[in-house]
């Protein structure tokens, strides 16, 4: 129902039709008198005095209706949020947080009221209203314009393509996709101040709580352009409705909203401080009762007080190993340590070392001679034929052959063991050579700077930062650098990928698929940005709060196409925070671990807050056991359908117990999910802090003290005391990840040449005398490609819904990525060109080559790191490589090229920019030679012109129209445009420009660009 305006897109008719209705007599400000004959329900809302000079915006939740205006009786609650703006312009809603500060959803339908008193001069003007759904614009009590409610749900692909709208006035900013646009005349008899109230309905059934770009603008009589409406006494600028003026406003509004979001989140979080203060006190009491291991002080230079505790522990282990090392370097000893022991370790230790299957251990000579439960010694030194071990590995009888399974040892392997027993089965201590444990030098300033930058913020230093750091003469400049970078909010960007992987964050923008989750990336990001203590954010994760589809930790709780989601979550929590791997326990007891099926499902029951049953699919087919020649290694101990209650199975492993002491940490004692969170994050759980410390250590040093980081059972830490000390220190400092990072990064161990072999060494010979060489992550590589080129990441918004007509629960929006971690699974299983996002694909294909995947179906604790030809391939040949190596019109590279004082200067700049170092003499020479020819004449006297303007815009392809053939053609045209790359900068001589591009290309294709120094 509307009388004063229509919502037709056929705007040309609008003004003609409407003129007769629109004689608004402006009365005194605040008047809301309805004229008789008013056909729209309700009247202009009474808002009282409005702050002069500002636009007042109020957001009401749970508006009673979505597709019509509420009657008087259907009254609104108080506004949930009120804020101010400068113009009648709304680009998005502020975020909603729950009372813990975790992202939540607004309770739709929402009503948004945007109001101000506006001075409008005498004259015949035109008003313009843009809104997505039902809206009406009141001027002094009369409705001056309105838009329609969203009609019924759109089809899944067959909607006709929506053409690009034609602007009402040439050069005008176009309305957002499927944003309704209404123009109506406004006649003002004499200059007056009018009360203007815009009411907009947002979201509701079948819709997102997104506004699109809402605005009210006015074209004053005699003016060419529309201007955004702004209040009387506004201190802000007049903004014409053209991109060049609206874009900066969008940016400033976005900054304002982001600051507001942060502030509101912080104040919600602050309500939890009291509880966490109690938790801190509890931790402190525990720490007092359980002091840290003392830092070694003797036998080395560590006696000096300046020695970092980490280095003291590391040097102590090296010295001990050297002094106790068996210097006997006989061929027999080498044979044992290089061949026999690795074989035993690989083939036997899984069941016969820390875990003594059949009572038998084979990890020491004594244990092997003693034998297992049968009492038969496994080894008779000197008599291989009488040794049970040999008999079992050489047996043809599959029912008793060891190791079990279908892969028997090879003849050579059996011979190796036979000879070793024959020669007396001597167990030689592993020799440690001084050169294996020597401490390499600490790296130089250039390398150190680059290493710290990547580890802290995931980006290289700018060339300026390199200059400043190299010039800095202060002795503690490295510590200062570390502290400064750890305080940088981009630390969150650097650590996001790790937790997305470990916690299997797996949002999909089309249908839910295997183990897809909500986008709880935003929960993790907020936690990292706010530097929440780790025990706190892990608790909040396990509590699964906020909205699952809009970034709350509840999104962690989802698991698409999974019939026991909480079992999956329990498995992730176990491996992520306790180092307990329960992957096998989904369907059967673990063959090489002590975890049982029941353990996993009892944790799942905690999360579910009630008993759970084992789904039918989570078992092993009976046929599997029937065809086995021997008793199977795996046992199904839970019949499907069995009900399992919450129970804590890991008291022995973790030290955490279900008892009264735990109750002290709980706010709701009967909430089993909270109970589980406390069992995991309580200081009594010695695994929690250690597992966390171990994970962070590995990220910086290339290997953990305990490997693999997610599966501690039966593994020994390489440096037990150091691990304990770090965990203790981490807890003492309030589970602060930044403190932990600082502790590690300020050690000499972290700063040494990366020649370590820790990742491949067994725990007893893993010394961390040097960090391992690390390849940069996919995210670091992509972010540095953009960063070094001076470009911002520019890809499509990750969604197929641009007009709000689907709730987030069925089609997600993941926003427009600005850092690589914000990318997501772009799988196009339907093989429809219309469902590609060519720019995002361009980024995704580089990330995938280096081991990233957006489809994290289960936890990724270590990305696949093996080198493949595709890795250098995408740096050489991909579309992204074309974009970042082109000297594009108006680009940073063009700028550098135009302003360089000499080829030498240019080469120096490029080396600092791309590799954070100065070129060597031979490098300098070769690149200067490359760029000297034509350098003097490189600049062409011309200006960047309109000729370099963008190709015409293409209609938008969405989920709703993607099955139209035209949709495929449009996306393919996009693909072609993206593949062609940006236009070049015509101010540079093409031949010389290409040589510059080739230089940049070779810098990003050198191994140094992708390997940490």
């Amino acid at each position, binding site marked *: 129902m509307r009388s004063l305006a229509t919502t037709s897109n056929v705007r040309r008719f609008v003004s003609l039709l409407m003129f007769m209705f629109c004689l608004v007599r402006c009365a005194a400000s605040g008047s809301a008198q309805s004229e008789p004959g008013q056909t729209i329900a309700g009247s202009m809302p009474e808002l009282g005095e409005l702050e002069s000079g500002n636009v007042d915006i109020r957001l009401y939740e749970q508006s009673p209706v979505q597709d019509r205006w509420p009657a008087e009786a259907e009254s609104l609650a108080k506004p949930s949020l009120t804020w101010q703006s400068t113009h009648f312009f709304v680009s998005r809603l502020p975020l909603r947080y729950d009372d813990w500060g975790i992202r939540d959803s607004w309770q739709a339908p929402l009503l948004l009221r945007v109001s101000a008193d506006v001075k409008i001069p005498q004259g015949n003007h035109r008003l313009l209203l843009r809104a997505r759904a039902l809206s009406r614009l009141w001027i002094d009590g009369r409705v001056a314009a309105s838009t329609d409610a969203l009609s019924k749900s759109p089809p899944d692909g067959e909607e006709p393509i929506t053409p690009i709208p034609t602007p009402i006035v040439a050069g005008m900013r176009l309305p957002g996709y499927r944003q309704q646009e209404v123009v109506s005349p406004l006649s003002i008899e004499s200059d007056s101040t009018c009360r203007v109230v815009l009411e907009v309905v947002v979201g509701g059934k079948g819709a997102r709580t997104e506004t699109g770009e809402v605005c009210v603008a006015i074209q004053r009589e005699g003016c060419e352009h529309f201007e955004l409406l702004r209040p009387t006494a506004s201190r802000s600028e007049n903004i014409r409705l053209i991109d060049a003026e609206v874009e900066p406003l969008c940016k400033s509004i976005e900054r304002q909203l982001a600051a507001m979001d942060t502030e509101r989140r912080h104040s919600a979080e602050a309500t939890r401080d009291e509880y966490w203060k109690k938790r801190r006190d509890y931790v402190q009491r525990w720490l007092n009762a359980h002091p840290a291991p003392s830092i070694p002080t003797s036998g080395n230079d560590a006696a000096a007080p300046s020695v970092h505790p980490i280095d003291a522990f590391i040097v102590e282990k090296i010295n001990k190993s050297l002094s106790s090392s068996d210097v006997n370097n006989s061929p027999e000893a080498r044979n044992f340590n290089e061949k026999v022991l690795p074989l035993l370790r690989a083939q036997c230790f899984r069941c016969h070392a820390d875990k003594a299957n059949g009572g038998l251990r084979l990890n020491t000579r004594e244990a092997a001679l003693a034998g297992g439960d049968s009492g038969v010694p496994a080894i008779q030194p000197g008599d291989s034929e009488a040794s049970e071990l040999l008999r079992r590995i050489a047996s043809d009888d599959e029912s008793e052959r060891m190791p079990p399974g279908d892969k028997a040892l090879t003849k050579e392997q059996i011979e190796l063991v036979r000879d070793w027993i024959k020669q007396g089965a001597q167990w030689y201590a592993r020799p440690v050579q001084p050169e294996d444990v020597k401490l390499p030098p600490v790296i130089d300033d250039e390398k150190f700077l680059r290493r710290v930058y990547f580890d802290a913020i995931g980006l290289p230093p700018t060339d300026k930062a390199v200059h400043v750091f190299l010039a800095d003469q202060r002795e503690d400049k490295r510590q200062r650098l570390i502290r400064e970078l750890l305080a940088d909010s981009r630390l969150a960007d650097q650590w996001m990928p790790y937790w997305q992987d470990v916690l299997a964050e797996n949002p999909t923008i089309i249908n839910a698929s295997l183990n897809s989750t909500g986008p709880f990336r935003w929960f993790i990001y907020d936690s990292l940005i706010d530097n929440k203590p780790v025990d706190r954010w892990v608790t909040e994760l396990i509590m699964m709060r906020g909205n699952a589809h809009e970034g709350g930790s509840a999104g962690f709780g989802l698991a698409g196409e999974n019939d026991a989601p909480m079992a999956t979550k329990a498995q992730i929590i176990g491996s992520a925070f306790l180092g307990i791997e329960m992957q096998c326990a989904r369907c059967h007891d673990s063959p090489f671990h002590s975890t049982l099926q029941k353990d996993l499902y009892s944790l799942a029951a905690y999360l579910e807050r009630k008993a759970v049953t084992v789904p039918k699919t989570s078992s092993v087919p009976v046929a599997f056991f029937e065809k086995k020649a021997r008793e199977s290694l795996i046992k199904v101990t839970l019949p499907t359908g069995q009900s399992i209650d919450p129970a804590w199975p890991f008291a022995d492993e973790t030290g955490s117990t279900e008892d009264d002491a735990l109750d002290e940490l709980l706010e709701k004692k009967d909430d089993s999910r909270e109970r589980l969170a406390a069992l995991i994050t309580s200081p009594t759980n010695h695994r929690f802090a250690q597992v966390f410390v171990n994970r962070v250590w590995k990220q910086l040093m290339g290997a953990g003290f305990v490997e693999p980081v997610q599966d501690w059972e039966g593994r020994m830490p390489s440096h037990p005391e150091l691990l304990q000390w770090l965990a203790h220190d981490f807890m003492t400092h309030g589970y602060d990840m930044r403190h932990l990072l600082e502790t590690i990064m300020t050690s000499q161990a972290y700063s040494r040449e990366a020649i370590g072999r820790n990742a491949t060494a067994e725990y007893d010979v893993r010394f961390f005398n040097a960090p391992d060489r690390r390849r940069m992550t996919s995210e670091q590589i992509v972010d540095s490609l953009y960063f070094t080129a001076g470009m911002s990441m520019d890809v499509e918004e990750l969604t197929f819904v641009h007009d709000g007509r689907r709730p987030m629960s069925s089609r997600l929006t993941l926003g427009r990525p600005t850092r690589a971690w914000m990318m997501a699974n772009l799988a196009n*299983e339907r093989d*429809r060109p219309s469902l590609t996002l060519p720019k995002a694909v361009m980024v995704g294909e580089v990330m995938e080559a280096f081991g990233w995947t957006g489809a994290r179906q289960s936890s990724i604790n270590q990305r696949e790191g093996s080198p493949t030809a595709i890795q250098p391939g995408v740096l050489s040949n991909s579309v992204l490589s074309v974009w970042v190596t082109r000297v594009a019109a108006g680009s940073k590279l063009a700028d550098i090229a135009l302003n360089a004082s000499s080829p030498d200067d240019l080469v120096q700049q490029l080396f600092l920019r791309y590799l954070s170092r100065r070129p060597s003499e031979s490098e300098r020479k070769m690149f200067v030679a490359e760029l000297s020819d034509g350098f003097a004449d490189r600049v062409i006297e011309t200006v960047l012109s309109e000729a370099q303007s963008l190709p015409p815009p293409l209609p938008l392809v969405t989920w709703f129209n993607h099955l139209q053939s035209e949709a495929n053609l449009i996306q393919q045209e996009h693909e072609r445009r993206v593949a062609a790359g940006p236009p070049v900068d015509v101010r540079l001589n093409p031949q010389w420009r290409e040589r510059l591009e080739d230089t940049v290309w070779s810098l990003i294709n050198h191994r140094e660009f992708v390997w940490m120094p």
Partner: protein
Amino acid sequence: MAHALHTLHATEPAPATLPPQGQAEHVISIWLGGGMGQIDTFDPKRRGDPKAKKAGSYYDSIDTAVPNVQVSEHLKGIAPLMEHVTAVRTVNHNVIDEHAAATNRMHTGRAISGTITYPSIGSLVASQLEPMEAGAPRYVLIGYPNVTRGPGFLGPNAGYIYLTDTSRGPIGLSRPQSITQDRQNHRSELLNRFREATPESTDPRLKEYDSVIDESLKLSGPEFNRSFQLNEEPESLRAEYGGEFGQRCLVARRLVQRGVRFIEVSHNLNFLNGAGWDVHNEGILKQHALIQELDTAVAALLRDLKKQGLLDKTLVTITTEFGRPPEFDSGGGRGHQGSAFTCVLMGGGLKHCGAYGTTDDLAKKIVSDPVSVPDFFATILWSLGIDPSLNLYDGDRPVPITDGGKPIAALFGV
């Protein structure tokens, strides 16, 4: 990769439960996303009428080279070649409503698992067979990349290289269009001089990366990229293969000749009818054009492989998400049917019989010789001599290469 390459070859006896081993060396796997309706293609039945809501085929049927085996009238090219073809008419699974899930089932041969990412059939083959020629990739995908088509727990060595457009070559390994060959040569030369100017590293990890830089420069050079240069083929042959899909099939043949073991060629490009093979509602109106495009390309491929002496060594398959029911939906199109549908095997040295397995008079229920998805996978693997009961390992965990699949014995001459 942790596992040794393993393949049974003629010297090793086949396990007792298996029929004589196949001798194929390559697979070209044609994928029809969206779900090919068996009743409108390889398992035709009586004519139906969408207007009268009478269930049945959309088209007439025609005879083929194999007596008593008929196909849709729009498969005129394949019909005379049916002695090299077996339409397996009784493939079945229980996934219906979700395209990604059905795509996953038909690529991995398994129901999804919450704990492991299963490899695709292409990766299974790649994990077991070295390329026929050194330097060639094992597995090439012509279509969009995704996890479903990937190596899962087998790791990147069993992964694919891929291209989405035959005019562009493989992603990461073909020179960008804006860079001429001369310029690419200059770049490589510049990079190599730069690499020489920096001291050689003793770090094995850096050395390994340096060696893949060399490999990448080589693969993206003109020699390997020749496989994608269709202008080396006679114009008449290219015309015989038809449009972009046909050109993809021709690239696949060239890759077979280059030594690649498994090539997946995706068909559903959606241009002919928007919906591709997912012919709900009006999507069905131009389904015949889609079938004809498939027919043109596949018939050309079979003839070409035969002429080149490659047909017996190359198994060509047509697989799809699920089939479609004989009934029509409210818009005159068809829904999904996973309980009985057709996948096709061609060439590869199998003993073809035109069609295998029988459905009822509306291709709705299986009457005889059902073939599970694992059985279908076992047939493909065994045609290459890969034991379908072989265990692969995800760390400690043994994962049989098929989920208990048994090859279709009749196709191996039993």
